[in-house]
C-alpha cells in the first residue's frame, strides 16, 4: 500500500483557499473614525459642520490674549514703535520696546508667528475642504470660503509687515509645507489681493459685522493697496466703503469702541468668559489701585494737539505712588460678565485716512484735506487748510493716523516703516539700540532649525 498524496494536497489547497477568502486582509482592517472627533472628510459633509469648522477659526483666534490678531498685533508693534512702554520690566517684552529682539523671543515665536500659521492652517484646511465638499450648499460654501479667505489675507498682511518675506503656506500638506522657503513680500501681497478679490466676489453684505463681509474685504483691500502704493485703487475701495453708507462715524468718542458702534466695519466677538476686547484686557489695570502694565510714551502724549477730545476720551491718566500713568482707554472694559466691547478689526475712520493719503499721493490735496477734516472735526479740532503742499499733506495724514489709530493694530509701526520714516523718527528716540534692520522681527530660531530652507532677516544672524 503506497501513500497517495494527491488527496492530501487537494485538501490542503481547498483549506488554504477558504482561509484566504475568509481573510481579505485589507477590508478587514478598515475602521470607522472615533465618534467624538471628526476627520477631515467628515467635517465638510454638511452646512452645519462646515460652519462649525469656520467658527473654530474665530474661536481659536479669540482664545488667547496677546496673541496674533487678538491684542498681540496691537501691543507688540506698539512697543516696537513709539506708542506704549512697560511700566515694569519684563525681559521678553522689553526686547520689543528697546528694539533688541532675539530669534528666541517667545512672543515673537509663540504669540505671533506660531499663532498666525496655526490660523492659516485652519483657513487652508477649510478652503480645500469646502472646495472638495459636495454636501455643503453653494450658498454656505461661497460665504464660508469668502470668510476664511478674508482671514487668511488678514493673517498674511500682518505676517508680511512684521517679518518681511514669509513662507506662503496655501495647502495643508505638512510634508510640503515643512520645507517651504520664504516668499518675496510682493508675492505675499499678490496672494492677499487674490484672496480678498475672491472674498469680495463670494461674500455678500451681511448686516452683521461679526463675520467678514464684502465691505470688510473691500476695506481691507483699500488698506492693502495703500501699503502697495496703488493710490487710485486704494481710493476706489475706500470710497466704496465710505460711500456705501452702512457705516457712520460715532459722534461720541466714548462709544466708538462699543460693540454696537456704527463705524465698525468688522469685529470679532470675544469667546473667553468675562473677557471683552483684548486691548481692554491688556491696557486697563484690573483695579483702581493696580499700576497699569503699559503706559503711553511721552512722545505720543506730546503729539496730541491742545483740545483734542481724543486725548481726554481715549487716554486715562492715573496718579499712583507719586507718579502718573497714562494708558490707552479706547476700550473701557477690563472684564465683565456680558461683553459690551468686541475685538474691532476695521473701522470707518481708517478708511477716511486711507483715502486722504491716496488722494494726496495723487495730487488731490483738497480731497485729502476734506477726508482729514472729517476725522479732525469729530475730535473737536479745527480743520486744516487745503493750501498745503503734497508733502505737508502727507505729514498731516501721518499725524492724524498716529493720533486716531494709536494703540490699534500696529498702525503706527507699520506707517513709519512703509513711509520709510522709521529711521528718522525712531532713530533719535530709541538711541543706540536702533538699527534699520529692527524694522523687521526675527524669524523664530526653532523655525530655522526645523525648516532648513528658511533664512534669517538681516541683523539677527
Amino acid at each position: 500500500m503506497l501513500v497517495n498524496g494527491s488527496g492530501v494536497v487537494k485538501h490542503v489547497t481547498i483549506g488554504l483557499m477558504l482561509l484566504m477568502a475568509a481573510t481579505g486582509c485589507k477590508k478587514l482592517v478598515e475602521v470607522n473614525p472615533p465618534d467624538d472627533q471628526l476627520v477631515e472628510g467628515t467635517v465638510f459633509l454638511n452646512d452645519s459642520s462646515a460652519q462649525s469648522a469656520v467658527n473654530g477659526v474665530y474661536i481659536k483666534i479669540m482664545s488667547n490674549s496677546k496673541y496674533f490678531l487678538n491684542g498681540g498685533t496691537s501691543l507688540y508693534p506698539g512697543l516696537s514703535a513709539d506708542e506704549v512702554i512697560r511700566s515694569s520690566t519684563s525681559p521678553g517684552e522689553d526686547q520689543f520696546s528697546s528694539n533688541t529682539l532675539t530669534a528666541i523671543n517667545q512672543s515673537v515665536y509663540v504669540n505671533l508667528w506660531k499663532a498666525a500659521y496655526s490660523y492659516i492652517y485652519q483657513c487652508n484646511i477649510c478652503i480645500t475642504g469646502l472646495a472638495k465638499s459636495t454636501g455643503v450648499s453653494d450658498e454656505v460654501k461661497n460665504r464660508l470660503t469668502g470668510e476664511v479667505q478674508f482671514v487668511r489675507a488678514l493673517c498674511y498682511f500682518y505676517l508680511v509687515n512684521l517679518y518681511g518675506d514669509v513662507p506662503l503656506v496655501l495647502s495643508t500638506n505638512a510634508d510640503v509645507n515643512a520645507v517651504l522657503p520664504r516668499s518675496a513680500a510682493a508675492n505675499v501681497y499678490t496672494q492677499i489681493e487674490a484672496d480678498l478679490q475672491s472674498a469680495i466676489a463670494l461674500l455678500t453684505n451681511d448686516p452683521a459685522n461679526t463675520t467678514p463681509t464684502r465691505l470688510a474685504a473691500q476695506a481691507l483691500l483699500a488698506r492693502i493697496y495703500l501699503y502697495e502704493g496703488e493710490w487710485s485703487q486704494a481710493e476706489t475701495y475706500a470710497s466704496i466703503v465710505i460711500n456705501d453708507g452702512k457705516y457712520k462715524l460715532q459722534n461720541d468718542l466714548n462709544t466708538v469702541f462699543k460693540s454696537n458702534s456704527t463705524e465698525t466695519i468688522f469685529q470679532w466677538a470675544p469667546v473667553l468668559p468675562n473677557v471683552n476686547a483684548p486691548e481692554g484686557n491688556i491696557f486697563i489695570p484690573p483695579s483702581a489701585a493696580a499700576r497699569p502694565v503699559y503706559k503711553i510714551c511721552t512722545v505720543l502724549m506730546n503729539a496730541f494737539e491742545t483740545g483734542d477730545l481724543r486725548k481726554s476720551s481715549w487716554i486715562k491718566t492715573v496718579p499712583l505712588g507719586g507718579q502718573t500713568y497714562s494708558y490707552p482707554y479706547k476700550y473701557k472694559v477690563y472684564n465683565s460678565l456680558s461683553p459690551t466691547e468686541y475685538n474691532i478689526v476695521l473701522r470707518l475712520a481708517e478708511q477716511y485716512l486711507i483715502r486722504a493719503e491716496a488722494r494726496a499721493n495723487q495730487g488731490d490735496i483738497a480731497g485729502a484735506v476734506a477726508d482729514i477734516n472729517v476725522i479732525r472735526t469729530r475730535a473737536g479740532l479745527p480743520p486744516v487748510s487745503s493750501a498745503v503742499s503734497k508733502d505737508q499733506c502727507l505729514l498731516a495724514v501721518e499725524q492724524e493716523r498716529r493720533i486716531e489709530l494709536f494703540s490699534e493694530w500696529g498702525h503706527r509701526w507699520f506707517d513709519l516703516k512703509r513711509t520709510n520714516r522709521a529711521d528718522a523718527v525712531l532713530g533719535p528716540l530709541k538711541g543706540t539700540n536702533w538699527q534699520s534692520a529692527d524694522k523687521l522681527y526675527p524669524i523664530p530660531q526653532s523655525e530655522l532649525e526645523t525648516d532648513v530652507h528658511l533664512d534669517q532677516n538681516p541683523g539677527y544672524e
Partner: protein
Amino acid sequence: MAKVLFAICLVAVPVFVQAQHITISVDNVPLKRVMKLVEGHSQYVFAYRTEYLQHAGHVSVHVKNGSIDQIMKQALKGSGLNYLIVGNMITVRPDTTAATATAISRNTAIAPFEGHVMNDAGLPLSGVSVLDNNSLNGTVTKDDGSFALRGVQSKTVLTFSSVGYEPSLLEVKDKTPVTVRLKPLLRDLDETVVIGYGKTSKRLTTGSVYKLSQAEIASQPVSNPLGILEGRVPGLLITQSNGLPGSTYKIQLRGQSSIGIVPGQLPPNDPLFIIDGVPYAPNNNSVQTVPSGSALGQSGRSPFSLINPADIDHIEVLKDADATAIYGSRGANGVVLITTKRGKVGPPVFNLNINSGFSNITRYPDMMNTQQYVKMRREALDNDGLTPNNTNAADLLLWDTTRYTDFRKLLIGGKAMTSNVQLSMAGGSNRFQYYLGTTYHYETTVFPGDLSNKRLAAHFNGHYQSKDSSLNITTSIIYTGDNNKSILKDLTSVVNLPPNAPDLYDAAGKFNWQPQDVAIINPMALLQQAYDAKTTNMLGNVDLSYRILKGLIFKTSLGYNRVQSDEIGLVPGSTLNPYTTPDPTGTSYFGKMVLHSWIVEPQLEYTRYFGKGKITALVGSTVQMQTSNITTTTATDFASDDLLRNRGDAGKLSTEELNTEYKYGGVFARLTGNYHDTYILNLTGRADGSSRFGPGKQVGNFWAAGAGWIFSNEPFIKENIPLLSYGKLRGSYGITGNDQIGDYKYLDQWQRVSYNYLGSSGIVPIQLADSNYSWEVNRKLEVAADLGVLKDHLLLSVAWYRNRTGNQLIAYTLPAITGFNKYAAKNSPALVENTGWEIMLQTKNKPNRNFQWNGMVSATIPRNKLLSFPNLNNSTYAGLLVPGQSLSVSKGLTYTGVDPITGLFTFQDKDKNGTISYPDDYRIIGNLGLKWYGGIQSDLQYKGWRLSLFVEYRNQKAYSYLYTIYNNGTPPGTILANQPAMVLDRWQKTNHEGALQQFSTGVKDSVNAAISRFTQSNGIIDDASFWRLRTIEFSYSVPCGWLRKTCMKRSRVYIQAQNLFTLTRYKGIDPETQNILALPPLRTIAAGVDISF
C-alpha cells in the same frame, strides 16, 4: 484512493484494531525503517525512547498479509526489545524479563489479575499500559483506573507505564486486587509547552518559552496574575505600582524597545496577553475611567484584577522571534499565554481550598514627632528671618504644640484582611472531561474604614473527544464580577500632615477644619470621598479541531471577551474645607467602559513522517475586532450630598463619550521539521493588517526562523560525555512588529472646542497626522544553550538575545508654519537595542522516596541602548536622549554637597562660567534602569511536609525618597508638611554640616532655586537594589493512609506569606514603588486548607 478508504474503515472499527493485514518485505534495514513502514501503511504509531533503539541492529522482516504481531516479532527478534500494543500505539521497550523469564515458575496461574492505578494524589489514571513482562501480554487501565489481565502467573513482574509518569514494577503475589500508584516524572523537559497556535515540549522547542506551572501559581497569596509572575521569568520585569487591591503592574519583556510619541515619557511596551486563545480586550491598560481618579493613583486599576489566579493552570511567556513572530505586528513586546484549568479523566473530584490572612505595610519611614516637627518649623522661620505670625506659623501659634498624632499609624497602619474560598469539581471520561470552579475573594485595605475589594469568579472548561479521536472540542468560559470599594485619594499622600494637627472631628462630631487661617486637609473627610467600581469580565472560547485525514487537522478557535466597568467617584460637599471652598457643594463622577473583542482563527495543520524525520505544517488566519466605548460624566449642582449617587438629581451634567474601534487580520504559516529529535528547524511567516495604520500602510509581513540541535542525541556525544543527559543549542532570528501606538493616530482629527462663537459651537483640528507611518519593526536575534547533566537532575539554560527596534514611532517636530509643532506619530530610523543574558539553573533531586528538593536560580542582565537617532538635536527628544546610552538615562547636574557657609545644595559648574545653567552644566547623572535581576526558588519536600520559597532580587538605581520630598512643593520646613525623621540630618547654623540643606518655609529664592536644581541632580538618585523574600509557603499534606478512613482523597494545610521581608539599602520607602506618597506593596500572611474528596 485506497488510503482514503482505509481511513473510513478505521472509523467504524473500535479501538483495538489488530485485524489489519500488512505486507512488508525488507532485508537488513534499520529497525526504525520497519517502524516507519508500519506507520506509513497502517494506523499504528510507535512510541519509544530514542536511546532504546540506538543499539538495535539491522533487521529483516518478511510478512505477507500478516498481522502486526508477526511483523513485530520478526523485527524485534534478538534485539533485546519487546513491544506492547495498546489501541493503535505500539510501545517498544527493553525486554527486562528476558534474562529472568526462564527462572520464573510457570505454575499456579491466577486469573484474572485485577487492580487499580492511581496517581500520587489518589486520582485514578486511565490509559496506563500494564505489561506482563513474562508473557508480554498487556492491557490498559479503564476510566476508573481499573485493569484486569488474564494469564498472569505468580512472581511475574508487571510493568505499569504512562506518559508523564515514572514506570513502576510490581511483582505478582497471590493478593488481588492490587493498587498501584504512579509518580509523576521528575524530568520536566518533556512537559508540554504551549506556543503560538500549537504545542511542543521544552526538549524540542527552538524558541524561547518560559512556563510557569500550577505549583508556582498556587503557592502565592496574590490576587493578580501579574503579581504571580513577578520576578519569576528571566527577562520579564514586573513592577507593582501601589499596595492597594486592584492596583496595576508595569510589565516589560526584555527591555524598553520604544521611544514613544510623547517625549520624556517612555511608552508601556506591554506584551500581548492571550487567555485561552482570546486576546484579552484591555490587554494591560487600566480599566479605570472615572474622571476623578482613585486611590490607586494615575495608573488606575489593573485589568488583571479581573482574572482569578485559581482558574489558571499555567502561564507561558514567549520571548524570541521564533516564538512570537506568528503573532505578527502584535508580538514585538513578547506574548503571555494564560491557559485555564481543565478537567482530568476520572471520577468527579471536589476540591475545596479556603484561606484567610492579613496584610500590612512593612517599609515606611518614621515621620517626625511633634517635638521634631515644631523644631524644624521654628528653625525654618528663623533661617528665613521671619517672625512667626498667624499666617506663616499658624501650626506653631494657633495649634497646641504638644499634641501628637501618628498619622502613619492612623491612616495606613491598619491590617488588611484577605480571604479566599475556592470550590471546584473536575473529572470526566476518556471522551469528555470537565472542570467547574468558583472562587470568592475578599480583601480589605490598610486604611481605616470599611473599604474592600470583592471578586466572584466562575470558570467552566469542557473537553470532548470523539470515539476515534478525530474530533476535539474544548470550551472555556470565565466570568468574573469584581466590586472595588475604595476612596478617591491614597491616604499615604497625606501621611505628612503635621503631627500636632488638631482633632479631626469637632465637639459636634463633624469634620474639624480649624483653624480658619490654615487650609488643612482632613483625612477623615477624604475617607468619605468614595470610589466604587463594579466590573465584570466575560471570556469565552471554543476550540474545535477535526482530523480530516491522517496527519491533517482542521482547527478553529472562536473567542469572545467583554469587559464592562461601572464606576462612581463621590466628592460630598461636606468633605471640602469650607474655608478654602466657600459654600462647598458635592460633585459625583461616573465612568462607564465597555470593551468588546472577538476573534476567529481557522487553521490547518499537517504532519507527516519521512524516515527519521517529521514535518509539521500549519497555515491559518486571524480575524480580530475590538471596540471600546467609554462614557464619563461629571455631575454637579446637587441639592444635597445624599443624592450624589443619582445623576438624575444633578443640576448640571457634563458627559463625554469616546468610542473607538480596532480591527486586525492576518494569515500565518509555520513549517517545523524534526529529524530524529536531533535537528529541528522552525520557519514562521505572517502577513497581517492593523487598523491602527493609514491606507496603504495597514499590511505588513513578518517572519522568523528558529533552529535547534539536540547534540546530546548524537552518538559521539553519548559515548564521550555520558554525564551529559541533555544538550541543545538553539538560535532564532526574525522580525516582529509593534502596533501599540493607540488608534487613529494616522488621521487628521478635529474636535469641538469648549468656547462658542456668539452661541454657536466650533471645531478645530487637534492632530496633524502623517498617514504614511507604519509599524515599529523589531528584529530579534537569540542564541541559547540548554544543558542537562546527571539524568537531567541539573539543567542549565543560558540565552543571549539582541532585539533591535527600528522604524520608531516618535513625535516628529515640524516647523510651526505647517500649523502644528509635530506630527502625532511618524517613523524615525532611530534604532533602540536591547541585549541581554538570561541564565537559569534548575535542579530536581529525589535522593529517596521521602525527600525531594527542587531549586532554581535565574539571572537576567539586560542592557538598553539607543544606537542611533538621526537629527536628534533638532527633535523634541534632544535634551532627553543620548545616543549610545540607555533610554532611561537621566541628564542633570552634578551634586556637590551642602555649602557649609550658605547652607545650600551646591552643584558642579562644569563650564566654569560662574553660574549653574542648562544645558552646559548638565551631564548624564544616572541610568534609572536595572543592572541585573532575577530570582531564587527552593522547594523542599519531606514526606507530607513542604517548604517552598522564592526570593526576588534587583540591582537598580532609582529616585530616592528625597525626590518626592523636594519635588512635591512642600520641602522640609514648609508649613503643614511633616517630613521623614531622616531629613533631620541637615545643615544648621551651629555646626555647619549636614546631608541636606537648611530648612526653609519656602520664601527664599536662593533656597528654592537650590531645591529646583537638587531635583534635577544626581543628589536625588539612590541605589534601589533589593533582595525580597517574595513568597514563602509551608504546607503539610495528610498521608494517604490516614485519608482512606475518610471520604477525602487529599488534604493539605498550608501557610503562605508574600513580601515577608526585604533586604535593601534604599532609604525611606519601598525600593520597588519608590514613591513616598503612595502605598507600598504589603506583606501578606495567609493560612488555609486544601481538601479534595
